[in-house]
C-alpha cells in the first residue's frame, strides 16, 4: 500500500446546480428493470412466511388439511365446466382469502399476473375462429379466399367467435381459481409445514427433496438478485454507452447465476457436513383436530356437489 492519491484529499462536493437540470425520470435499462421486478415478484409470491403467521382462518388449519384441500380443489376446478359454478368458486376462494387476513389487493395482483402468463396468453388463439369456429363476435380481417396451411384450414375471414370467447373464458377462470387456491395455501402455510404434510401424505421422498432444494435455490437466487440490484443502484446515475451497458447487463446475469450456484453449492456442502444423506427428516407433526376434519369435509361436500350438478346437468 502506498500513498493516498491527491485527488482524494480534495473535498469537492457536487452541487445540485452543477448537475444539468433534468427533471426526467431516472430509469434503469429495460432488462435491469425486468430482472429486478421478476426477482421481487418471485420472492413476494413464493416466500410469504410472515402471512402464514397471521391469525386467519386457514392459518389455524392443519397443513395436511390444506394440502388435501389443494389436491381436491384443483381436481374439482378442472372437472367443473360451468362458468357460473366457477364464478361461485372464485367468490368462495375470495372469502377464504379475506378470512385468512391476507391483503386482497396484493394477493390478487400476484394471482392476476400469473393468470396473464399461464391463462390469458396461452388461451389467446382459442378466441379466434381458426381454432374455435362459430358465430362471429368481432370480425378482424376479411380476405377473398380460404386456404389450407400445413394442418390448419385458414378461413376467408378472421374473427373472434362467441364460442371462442366462451371456451377461452372457461379455461381462464379455471386457471384463475387453481392459481388463487394454490397461492392461498402457499401464503397461509410455512413451506416446511407443506413439505411435512406432503411427507405425511406419502409423497415420494425424491419429490420432496427436489422441491426443498428448489425452494432453497430460488430463495438464494432472489436474494443475490436483490443484493446485486442494490449494488448497481448505489453507483449508477447516468446512462452509459450502449456497448458498456450491454456488457454490464450480460455480466450481471453471469454474476447472479455464478453467485447463486456458489452459495447453493456451499449450502449443499453444509447440509452434507451436518449429516444429510439424501432423505429429509421432518421432525414433529401437528395432529388433526375436529375443526380440521369439519373444514375438510365441508370443502369436499361443496366441491363434489358443484362437480356433480355441473356434470349431471351438463352445465357449460
Amino acid at each position, binding site marked *: *500500500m502506498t500513498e493516498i492519491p491527491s485527488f482524494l484529499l*480534495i473535498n*469537492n462536493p*457536487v452541487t445540485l446546480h452543477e448537475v444539468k437540470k*433534468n427533471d426526467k425520470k*431516472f430509469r434503469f435499462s429495460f432488462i435491469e428493470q425486468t430482472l429486478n421486478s421478476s426477482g421481487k415478484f418471485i420472492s413476494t409470491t413464493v416466500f410469504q412466511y410472515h402471512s402464514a403467521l397471521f391469525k386467519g382462518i386457514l392459518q389455524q388449519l392443519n397443513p395436511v388439511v390444506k394440502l388435501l384441500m389443494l389436491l381436491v380443489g384443483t381436481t374439482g376446478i378442472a372437472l367443473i365446466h360451468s362458468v357460473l359454478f366457477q364464478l361461485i368458486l372464485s367468490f368462495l376462494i375470495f372469502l377464504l382469502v379475506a378470512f385468512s387476513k391476507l391483503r386482497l389487493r396484493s394477493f390478487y395482483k400476484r394471482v392476476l399476473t400469473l393468470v396473464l402468463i399461464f391463462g390469458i396468453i396461452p388461451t389467446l388463439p382459442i378466441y379466434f375462429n381458426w381454432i374455435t369456429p362459430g358465430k362471429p363476435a368481432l370480425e378482424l380481417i376479411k380476405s377473398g379466399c380460404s386456404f389450407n396451411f400445413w394442418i390448419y384450414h385458414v378461413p376467408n375471414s378472421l374473427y373472434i367467435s362467441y364460442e371462442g370467447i366462451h371456451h377461452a373464458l372457461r379455461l381462464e377462470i379455471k386457471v384463475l381459481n387453481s392459481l388463487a387456491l394454490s397461492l392461498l395455501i402457499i401464503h397461509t402455510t410455512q413451506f416446511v409445514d407443506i413439505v411435512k404434510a406432503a411427507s405425511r401424505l406419502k409423497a415420494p421422498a425424491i419429490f420432496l427433496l427436489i422441491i426443498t432444494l428448489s425452494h432453497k435455490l430460488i430463495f438464494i437466487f432472489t436474494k443475490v438478485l436483490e443484493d*446485486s440490484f442494490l449494488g448497481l443502484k448505489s453507483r449508477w446515475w447516468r446512462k452509459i454507452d450502449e456497448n458498456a451497458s450491454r456488457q454490464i447487463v450480460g455480466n450481471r446475469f453471469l454474476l447472479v447465476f455464478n*453467485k447463486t450456484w456458489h452459495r447453493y453449492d456451499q449450502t449443499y456442502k453444509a447440509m452434507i457436513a451436518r449429516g444429510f444423506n439424501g432423505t429429509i427428516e421432518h421432525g414433529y407433526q401437528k395432529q388433526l383436530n375436529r375443526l380440521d376434519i369439519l373444514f375438510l369435509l365441508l370443502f369436499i361436500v361443496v366441491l363434489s356437489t358443484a362437480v356433480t350438478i355441473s356434470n349431471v346437468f351438463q352445465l357449460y
Partner: protein
Amino acid sequence: MEKLFNLENVRYQYNQFQQALVNVSFDIEKGEILSIIGSNGSGKSTLLHILAGLVFPTSGILKFENHEISESALNKKDFNAYFRQNVGYIFQHADAQLFCPTVLDEILFGPQQKLMKKEEAMDIAFSLMKMLNIEYLKDRPTYMLSGGEKKKVAIAAVLAVNPQVLIMDEPTSSLDPKTRSFIIELIFSLNEAGKTIILTSHNLEMISHFQSRVAVLSENHTIERIGMPEDVLNDTEFLIKNNLISEHMHKHGTHIHKHLPGSLFFHKHDRL
C-alpha cells in the same frame, strides 16, 4: 457544524412481524466520522441502506443537505446524479456491488459516468489500484477474486468518484491486517480532507481510535445512545446490556477463567 443528514422518526419494517428500525432520529454533521454499532440484527445495515438512498423509510423523514431523500426524489435524473456522486456506499459483502466485466472496468465505471476524459479516468483508476495494491488484478473478472480482493476493488470503485460522504458497512471485515490498518489510515486521511464518514463495525477497538461520535443501535432497533467514544465505550454495563461485549474465557496454564474484555476500548490518542 453544518448538518449533512437529518433523520426524523425514521421507521423501517420488512413486514408486519419484522421491524428493522423504530423511531430513529439524529443528525450527521458535515466532516464527521460517525460509527454505528449494535448487535447482530439491530438494523445497522438497514440504516446505512436508508442513508444511501437504497431503501426508503416506512415512515419518518430523511434529509440530505436539506433535501428530502425519497423514492420520488431519487427518480429524478438530476437529483439522483447529485446524490449518487456525493454519497458513496461500500457494502459489507463487496461482491454485491461489483458488476462490470473486469476490475479496471469496475473502477472506471464512476469516472465514465462523470464524463471524465479517458486519460484522467485512467490516472485515477491506476492511482487507486496502486494505493490498494491491486494493479495485478486489473484485467481479472470480478467474480474470480477472493473476498478481500473484492472488498479492495469495491473500495477503489467507490473512491474513483471521490464522493463527499463515504458510507461503509463493516469496512475492515474480510481484510488482512495490513490492509485493515491501511483502511483505518485512509478513513482518517479522507476525514481530514473534509469528507464525512459513516461506518458500522463490531470492532469497538477500531472505533475507539476515531475519537468521533458513536451511535448505538439497541436490540429494540432504536438509537439507544449517541455520543463520544469515551462516554459510550467506557460504560461497561451499557455495552453488556446492548450485547456489544460479553465475558470471554481464558486459559492460563491449567486454570480457565472468565472475564470481561480488558479495561476498555477507549484509549485516547493524538490524531494522526
